[in-house]
């Protein structure tokens, strides 16, 4: 019995030392990790809403979760530059999450794929940046389109899909299209040009 107590004590001591060490490391890294997480969303938002002031993009919540973001042109939160939302669609092997920015007329201003676990070399090419270019050719196709134009070639539209990955591409296009429909409803309609 005494033996067990002693062994338990040693183990507890070791664990406590470990815990203490970790809490120190955690204290140092925690802010950075959180900053990194925030940066991911922030970067996506700035890509999606290039015209908005990066400091003036605010989340809109509905039932305790973010439904979409509103981007203002100025720091004082005036003049809406556009809206952003996260579109989710089932791809080939994962749910693809895309940050989408649209202007007030319902035209896509920018998109950024945030999360996908598609097949390397196939579905992952929806994020491919060609050698010598600076942005993804697939995602660039979505710019300046309205919802009706978001159809991939295989379905009769003119968004060229990544060869061999129609499913992933269709998921992106369809999820954005669907998200824009929902956004339109929420806003009570886009402005007509």
């Amino acid at each position, binding site marked *: 019995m005494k033996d067990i107590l002693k062994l338990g004590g040693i183990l507890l001591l070791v664990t406590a030392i470990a815990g203490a060490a970790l809490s120190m490391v955690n204290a140092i890294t925690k802010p950075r990790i959180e900053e990194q997480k925030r940066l991911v969303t922030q970067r996506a938002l700035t890509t999606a809403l290039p015209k908005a002031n990066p400091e003036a993009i605010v989340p809109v919540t509905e039932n305790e979760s973010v439904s979409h973001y509103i981007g203002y042109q100025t720091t004082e939160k005036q003049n809406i530059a556009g809206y952003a939302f996260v579109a989710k669609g089932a791809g080939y*092997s994962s749910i693809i999450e895309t940050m989408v920015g649209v202007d007030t007329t319902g035209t896509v201003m920018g998109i950024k794929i945030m999360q996908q676990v598609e097949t390397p070399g196939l579905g992952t090419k929806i994020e491919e940046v060609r050698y010598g270019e600076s942005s993804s050719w697939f995602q660039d196709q979505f710019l300046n389109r309205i919802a*009706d134009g978001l159809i991939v070639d295989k379905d009769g539209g003119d968004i060229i899909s990544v060869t061999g990955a129609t499913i992933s591409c269709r998921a992106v296009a369809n999820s954005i299209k669907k998200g824009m429909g929902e956004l339109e409803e929420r806003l009570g309609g886009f402005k007509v040009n």
Partner: protein
Amino acid sequence: MEKNFLVSASPHITHKDTIPRIMYSVVISLIPAIAGSVYFFGVRAVWILLFAILSAVATEALIQFLMKKPITVKDGSAIVTGILLGFNVPAAVPWWIPVIGSAFAIAVGKIPFGGLGYNPMNPALLGRAFLLASWPTRMTIFKTEPTGGTLSGIDAAAINEYGLDSITSATPLNVFKTQKGIISDWNELVKSGLEDPILQEKAAQANNAITQLYDSSSNLLWGNVGGVIGETSAALLLIGAVYLIYKRYIGLRIPLSYMGTVALLSWIFGGTEGFFSGDPIFHILAGGLILGAFYMATDMVTSPVTSKGRYYFGIGCGIFTVLIRLVGGYPEGVSYSILLMNLAVPLLDRYTKPKTFGVKKK
């Protein structure tokens, strides 16, 4: 002086079947289907089959030579593997596709496990699965018109002139699947309260397309459809199969239980209007089911030896085929379902051992 007589254990006579005899019979039985493939796809088909066969045979011979083992390509099994691999690629692939596919089938799927008789999975199908995973685009361009083309794939001229799509003809199952996808997308939208006129229009078209597909069984039977080289004509494949059945090199347990399961399940689940609205005939004739059920699921090496085991094997193949066709990532499920069931063969054999004569059932 007396002569020395041969001495060996009984029996002293054996049946005339030998491994080469069986393998070459399979080759013969495939001749109608080969002829059909030339008719449908032009001389390209010949080249592709030739490359596939040569690569299979050369790979086997080369490895055995390097390992200083007896070279056994004379037994004909590599030839069968080569033909069946060639049958499993579309006609528009460049020459290196069948070459690499056959080489993989033999060098990875067969020789490492000890060669003929020891490979746990169907080499030709492994070759196909390898090609499909590695070059999915190459492996899914189908065309129906017989063309010469160049050895490196489809003519560049053709691509420029018509655009890729005009020589890309989807397989019936492909059409079936995309159209079904459109209908279900549409239903999704309706469910979420949105009605998109464009999609509505497309959904109506899709319904139409599926009906038309169902009506085209005679084309499916004779093979006038897109697909890999060997799968298009059900009738020509069946001629060869009848010969093999007559020779008793393949039995009916696997093909019948396989096709029966596909027919039943596709009838129940395959329709667009709820249960029991699918078209079993379509599902049997479209795609590679006939090729798979008679030539690949029946590969002796990779199917069970017990008679109950063979029924279960066929049923399992059928279930996976329908599952993949209806909800899987590919339009066609035959190759994967056979590969999956190959994995279960040792278990099937183990648990379906016949009851020894005179041993009471428990």
